[in-house]
């Protein structure tokens, strides 16, 4: 019931005075500000932005009904429109015409994130002409045509601005079209058609999301997911991009303040804003990731989905934990591979950034930006802390399976040429020792599956009393290490009597104390 929904309204909506006979409410999509204008401004204008701290209040003369009111960035300049053809600026400033374009326009839409305006042209209204605003210039982009379900004869306006929404998905601009089909037996129901609008080049239809229902819809984009609200059934579903995927319906949670869900007074704004003017609330639509885990049975596809979401780390890690309980090794392997692919990409980006800054050169004159580490980058420390260390302690899983899972992770890291951290090897050794699988341990070491290192060599030495071959293996490992000539002296200096104390490794003239983790001492003590 309540726990299954994965979309919710933000906990603390922006509250403003609701629309009434004396109060008009306006919303500026660019700055995401709500203007509550009382009595035309005479008794006060309250402006609330995304953070309540930005609340601004002022008065202005009532010079007639306000049609539209906006602030510039930083609330420096106020613009008020009272008539159809004029805009007033209370402060005296100079205005300069930069560019003008003459086109027959039915309606327009503006996307503030990308600074692109979309104009509906032609009689039918389905030929859209975009313009991009950049650095004080206005550039004409290539126009494109929206496919209408029915070509009206005679031609009339068939595309309204309510059917179109612009959104940024994965950093790319898309134009979403809500295509309604007439209700017939064969009708597929409504569809959302996505047109990809690249900076340069032509606009192309890229995806079609089938909704299998008809009626009134509204669109939002949250965390790169296309959310479709269906009013009559009071549900919302989501489709992530790219790759169509049927997200089942979900009901948003009860917000902390009383309000009517899906009321007809709700207005939806891009990308993720829902406003109820009649009640005075502005909500941000949010995704709750944990319930989405049940949407996809195929863990591979689930990982693909989660890796694209913003706050995915803990959910991914919990999926890993769960899948190791029940899933089979191939599934576990696939999950690890997907995660390590993302991890590897991040490591490579970091590496090339480090190399570029070190050498002082930058490619093509543009300074390289430090790669951002998203939550989707799950590194070995994450996996060890949240998944593997507790997994290896489980009593309800066979030790064979535990080792198989850890080895699968090591295999995956090797496949992506990621250096395996020594604590993972220690985990393997610990599990093998605890289950008396010494012959297995020996074979892993023989084939250098557990890479040689000094800490590992000393760990092996601590096992000597329970497993004599460990002595030989550790000497081999030290020989391969950085101070091979000292090994001779080392082998004679090993203090065989005290296993409890930290091992003193005499290497050459120096004595290094290498602390053996508690687990090991515990283990070797119990096995003696």
């Amino acid at each position, binding site marked *: 019931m309540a726990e299954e929904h994965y979309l919710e309204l933000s906990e603390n909506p922006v509250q403003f005075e609701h629309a009434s006979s004396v109060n008009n409410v306006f919303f500026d999509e660019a700055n995401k500000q709500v203007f509550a204008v009382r009595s035309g401004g005479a008794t006060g204008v309250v402006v609330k932005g995304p953070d309540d701290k930005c609340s601004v209040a002022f008065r202005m003369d009532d010079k007639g009904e306000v049609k539209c009111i906006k602030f510039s960035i930083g609330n420096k300049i106020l613009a008020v429109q009272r008539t159809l053809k004029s805009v007033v600026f209370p402060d005296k400033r100079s205005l300069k015409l930069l560019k003008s374009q003459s086109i027959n326009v039915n309606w327009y839409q503006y996307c503030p994130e990308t600074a692109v305006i979309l104009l509906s042209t032609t009689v039918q209204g389905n030929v859209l002409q975009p313009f991009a605003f950049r650095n004080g210039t206005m550039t004409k982009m290539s126009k494109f045509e929206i496919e209408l379900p029915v070509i009206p004869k005679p031609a009339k306006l068939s595309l309204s601005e309510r059917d179109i929404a612009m959104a940024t998905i994965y950093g790319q601009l898309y134009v979403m079209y809500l295509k309604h089909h007439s209700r017939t037996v064969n009708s597929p129901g409504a569809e959302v058609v996505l047109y990809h609008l690249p900076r340069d080049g032509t606009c192309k239809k890229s995806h079609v999301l089938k909704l299998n229902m008809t009626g009134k819809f509204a669109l939002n984009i949250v965390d790169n997911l296309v959310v479709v609200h269906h009013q009559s059934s009071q549900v919302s579903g989501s489709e992530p991009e790219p790759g169509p995927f049927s997200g089942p319906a979900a009901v948003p949670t009860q917000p902390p303040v009383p309000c009517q869900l899906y009321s007809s007074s709700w207005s939806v704004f891009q990308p993720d804003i829902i406003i109820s003017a009649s009640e005075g609330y502005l909500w941000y639509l949010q995704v709750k990731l944990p319930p989405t885990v049940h949407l996809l049975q195929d863990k591979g596809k689930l990982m693909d989905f989660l890796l694209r979401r913003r706050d995915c780390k803990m959910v991914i890690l919990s999926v890993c934990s769960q899948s190791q309980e029940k899933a*089979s*090794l*191939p599934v576990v*392997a696939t999950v690890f591979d997907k995660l390590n692919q993302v991890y590897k990409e991040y490591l490579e980006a970091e590496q090339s950034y480090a190399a570029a800054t070190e050498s002082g050169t930058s490619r093509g004159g543009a300074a390289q930006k430090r790669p951002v580490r998203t939550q989707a980058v799950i590194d070995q420390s994450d996996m060890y802390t949240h998944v593997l260390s507790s997994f290896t302690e489980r009593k309800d899983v066979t030790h*064979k*399976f535990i080792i*198989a899972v850890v*080895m*699968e992770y*090591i*295999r995956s890291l*090797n*496949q992506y040429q990621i250096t395996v951290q020594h604590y993972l090897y220690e985990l393997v050794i610990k599990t093998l020792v605890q289950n008396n699988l010494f*012959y*297995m341990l*020996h*074979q892993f070491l*023989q*084939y*250098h*599956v557990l890479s040689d290192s000094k800490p590992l060599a000393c760990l092996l030495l601590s096992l000597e009393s329970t497993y*004599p*071959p460990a*002595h*030989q*293996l550790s*000497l*081999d490992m*030290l*020989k*391969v290490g950085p101070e091979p000539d000292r*090994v*001779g002296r080392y*082998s004679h200096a090993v203090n065989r009597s005290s296993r409890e104390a930290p091992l003193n490794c005499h290497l050459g003239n120096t004595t290094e104390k290498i602390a053996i983790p508690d687990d090991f001492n515990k283990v070797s003590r119990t096995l003696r």
Partner: protein
Amino acid sequence: MASGAQEKQYTPSLLSFFIYNPTFGPREGEEEKKILFYHPSEVEKNEKIRNVGLCEAIVQFTRTFCPTKPAKSLHTQKNRQFFFEPEEHFWIVMVVRNPMIEKPNKDGKPPAIEYQEEEILDTVYGAVVRQCYSMYKLFNGTFGRAMEAGGVELLIQKLEKFFYRYLQTLHLQSCDLLDVFGGISFFPLDKMTYLKIQSFVNRVEESLSLIKYTAFLYNDQLIWSGLEQDDMRILYKYLTTSLFPRHSEPELAGRDSPLRPEVTGNLLHYGRFLTGPTNLKDPEAKFRFPKIFVSAEEGYEELHLIVYKAMSAAACFMISATVELTREFCEQLDSLVGPQLTLLASDICEQFTINRRISGPEKEPQFKFIYFNHMNLAEKSTIHMRKTASVCLTSVHPDLMKILGDINCDFARFDEDEEIIVKAMTDYWVVGKKSDQRELYVILNQKNANLILVNEEVKRLCATQFNNIFFLD
């Protein structure tokens, strides 16, 4: 040119092999009951009793001097007898005729025979006897188990059935140091491919939960063993000297040869069963898997041995013998393992070729050496060539092999690390090195070499061929 009469060298050969238990016929007139197996069987009954009695007496007698360690062998001029007590009161005795040289005599007298007593080593043939028992035990379990299951009659039956065939495969003339070691040759592999094989084994064991243990081999060399060392050691010997050679000849046969194995008709993979069903398509065909005994927490457990091969890769799957293996199970295994194993086999082959190309000709064995590690039973020999059931060719004079054996005996006497350098005949030098649990034997052939030079050469060898192994200098 002499009249054609030349020295004839006779290699050691098996004179007799018998198994007895003195407690089965302790009283007078009951001696025959002690004998559980005797080869050659056509020997007259009284002679058998006499020979057994002699061994029994010798063992008893020597026990007075050393109760804990009875006699191991008896040296006489013409032959040598080896005694081995694998289980309490059960004795295995092998009598080997010493190598000899028949020198033609002038004047028409019968040729003089010179017995070369010192040429055969106790350690070598003692190891052979032990191996006979291990092999029997692998397929039949202990003597005690047979006794429990069906008394003396069953034991006699089993011994007869097994040793009659097995003794025919013994080639005592080619036994040497490697028999003392009873080691396993491991296939060199890079980490990534090794992990892939691990992954494969784990997944198969997960899908087919009946499988208890798996072993993975490539090209007659071991890569992974899920069995304990001692069990794997004898299984490995069986696979490499008996099972694989039996099946490789048909593989090498021409396309139209009648020897060519039945193609299962499955073009998706090259996997096939080496034990069990030879033709999965025939529903009528009966099949069975050989059963083996391996050590378990409480004594022994009996397992079906499934050996499945694709190209040069072989996987052994061991399943508890209490389970009945059906045709459906075999088909399931075939469809699951076949494609994966085929893929793995070609991966391994590719990696191996790449590695060979990288390491280049420098690693080509210019040195003749034998290496053995007691810890993991890993052995490597550049002296021995193609190993089959029938013959194990060595590229080295048997006299030199004897020197190696002598050095090994010396090593066995003490625990400490040692190095022994021997100047052999002509320009041969033999170096034996023992460090920790490892033994290395190198044979060098250098004109005008001396101790220092030889020492340097061996050091060089250790640095190049064994650079990741720690040898105390």
